[in-house]
């Protein structure tokens, strides 16, 4: 007989890492199953220049490969509905290379559905989550300003905001003329030493992984401290297939396969926390079928797999005249934009023909380590070379992100006859944008273009019909949503299954709506809140 663990957590990204840290801290014995292993920080190519990287690759060397390949982890899509799913298997998951934008949701998000009647509202409000946002900000370190808006609350604990780059300032100025505020960005980057960790040195390499861990990642910030408690065990390369149940339909453990030997294993648990990232968590739940759960564990409502909400976005580029031919500055900063344009479309009283809203990010303004945009500059030869050089310091980039409404048939399913190399049914993602997203996109294009026009920028050609490839915002949510009504939701406000009390789902799958904002800060806050509740229930012997 194998021992029964207090809690088994599937996945160690933002969600699983937070659950592991918070529970071990409170005396629980925790086992984490992770499909990958630790990414060796000393092997990151953070300070390898582009031309050096090319030489290394030619020598047959590789940086750590964060993204999992499709052979190991396949997924399907209908022919005419592509979905580009980015997944990282390994400790810390996608937080090793995430964009670090850390924005709190507001009640415009939590209560949005209450106002417009589209699908169900969240069972919680900003006031329920705010104390956890406060704690997360302080734990992981989020830099930002104190320029709160109704759509962007809670700046109490920010580390100093980095100064904007010239291009960002010029956009800020142009937007202001249009009555739109661009505020200081909020990012989980340490702009000064924090909780014993070194500050960022402004190398701009975050997308390659930070060699000193100056931005939040689950592995260094949550798992390593949790190990110190002596109560955390991680089994690496454990590819989870199913949550197992007992004769009463309660979770009894987890079935997994060794990633390399493909040998099947089982562990027993009093409580199972599912945190494999939205789509993989959903796949695990749908594959956890039994007599009591013919439709997948905890899925009597048939909402699991449905309402997949990503975000819709676009990219617009321009060259601001004030910076054409200007001296080239080191624009790396903290590796992403230093500003953010919070949602504003609810404020001006104008009636719109779509629901919900959008915000805007600005990554890639200024001098960067390539000039891919030059492909859009016509011509060749000496004149072309001059044209590129002149524009290089003046590049500005606008990336609006809009909320995608939850639709019942934007959906993940599994097919028992379509198996991966472990014999686990593969997920099929059927997702498409609808009328609401198209209409919102029109205003997103118009807003971005109007800011560029106000800045008198030369705008790079774009196609206003382009909707982007679904999946590429890398913000998947809502396929196991929380809600007050067990008939219309799978989880309660503490990420606990309505049907199966000892199963918690703490990643983006639990979100009731997507919002226009990046989800990770909210994942961290909700996972902390859920595991506080869970610890209380276990201590009170209700679980």
């Amino acid at each position, binding site marked *: 007989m194998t021992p029964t663990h207090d809690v088994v957590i599937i996945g160690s990204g933002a969600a699983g890492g937070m659950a592991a840290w918070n529970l071990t801290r409170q005396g629980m014995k925790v086992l984490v199953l992770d499909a990958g292993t630790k990414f060796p920080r000393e092997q990151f190519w953070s300070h390898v220049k582009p031309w050096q990287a090319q030489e290394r690759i030619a020598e047959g060397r590789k940086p750590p490969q964060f993204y999992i390949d499709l052979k190991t982890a396949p997924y399907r899509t209908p022919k005419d509905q592509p979905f580009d799913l980015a997944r990282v298997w390994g400790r810390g998951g996608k937080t090793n290379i995430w964009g670090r934008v850390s924005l709190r949701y507001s009640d415009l998000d939590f209560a949005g559905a209450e106002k417009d009647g589209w699908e169900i509202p969240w069972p919680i409000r900003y006031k329920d989550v705010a104390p956890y946002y406060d704690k997360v900000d302080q734990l992981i370190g989020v830099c930002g300003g104190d320029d709160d808006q109704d759509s962007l609350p809670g700046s109490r604990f920010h580390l100093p905001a980095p100064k904007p780059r010239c291009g960002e300032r010029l956009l800020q100025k142009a937007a202001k003329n249009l009555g739109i505020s661009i505020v200081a960005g909020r990012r989980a980057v340490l702009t000064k030493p924090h909780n014993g960790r070194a500050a960022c040195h402004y190398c701009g390499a975050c997308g390659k992984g930070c060699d000193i861990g100056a931005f939040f990642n689950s592995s260094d910030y949550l798992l390593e401290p949790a190990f110190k408690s002596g109560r955390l065990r991680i089994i690496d390369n454990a590819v989870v297939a199913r949550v197992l149940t007992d004769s009463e339909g309660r979770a009894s453990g987890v079935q997994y396969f060794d990633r390399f030997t493909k040998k099947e294993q089982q562990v027993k648990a009093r409580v199972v926390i599912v945190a494999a990232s939205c789509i993989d968590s959903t796949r695990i739940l749908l594959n956890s079928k039994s007599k009591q759960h013919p439709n997948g564990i905890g899925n009597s409502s048939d909402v699991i797999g449905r309402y997949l909400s990503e975000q819709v976005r676009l990219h617009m580029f321009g060259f601001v005249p004030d910076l054409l031919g200007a001296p080239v500055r080191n624009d790396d900063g*903290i590796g992403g934009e230093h500003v953010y344009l919070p949602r504003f479309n609810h404020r001006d009283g104008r009636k719109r023909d779509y629901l919900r809203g959008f915000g805007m990010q600005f990554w890639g303004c200024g001098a960067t380590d390539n000039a891919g945009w030059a492909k859009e500059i016509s011509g060749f030869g000496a004149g072309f070379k001059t044209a590129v050089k002149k524009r290089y310091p003046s590049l500005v980039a606008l990336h609006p992100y809009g909320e995608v409404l939850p639709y019942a048939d934007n959906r993940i399913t599994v097919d028992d006859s379509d198996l991966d190399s472990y014999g686990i049914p593969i997920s099929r993602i059927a997702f498409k944008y609808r009328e609401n997203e198209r209409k919102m996109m029109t205003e997103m294009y118009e807003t971005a273009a109007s800011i560029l026009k106000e800045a008198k920028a030369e705008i790079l050609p774009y196609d206003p019909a382009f909707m982007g490839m679904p999946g590429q915002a890398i913000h998947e949510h809502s396929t196991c949503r929380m809600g007050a009504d067990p008939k219309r939701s799978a989880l309660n406000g503490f990420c606990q299954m309505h049907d199966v009390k000892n199963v918690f789902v703490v990643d983006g799958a639990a979100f009731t709506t997507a919002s226009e904002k990046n989800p990770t800060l909210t994942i961290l806050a909700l996972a902390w809140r859920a595991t506080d509740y869970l610890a209380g229930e276990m201590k009170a012997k209700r679980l």
Partner: protein
Amino acid sequence: MNPTRRDALVTIAALATTASAEAQQTPFLTTPELAWLSAFVDVMIPRTDTPGASDAGVPTFIDRRLAANPALAESFRAGRKALDEDAKAKFGAPFPSLTLAQQTELLTPMEKDPFFRMMKGLTIDGYYTSRAGLTQELGWHGNTFLMEFPGCDHPEHQA
């Protein structure tokens, strides 16, 4: 231009997965093909007061890309042949042997041609990620260690 965030963030990782794990020592293209390629990329980005594309090692960059991608290599060979035939029909000699004026005349109407776009794209990718292209031509001096990030200090840029 519609790049993805992943394009921006994982160029290196992507390169590493498209390249074979084996070291690539010898050039993939033949010597005449490489000579042709050098001539072509120098028309795209010539030497001025800063290095040109072949000075910056762009032919090697493209050679590696083609080695890793048979379809791309196929397009290169077919496109080269077609361009040389055009050059011969119009000016009586293959592309590299033409004068710059003739080369320019031949390529100018090709702005939307798939082969031209592919070759211009590869040249841009190679040149503006090379040491010479990035640091000497563009003046990039990033990916370093700073104590402070100065940010914008121009009063005229403030909102």
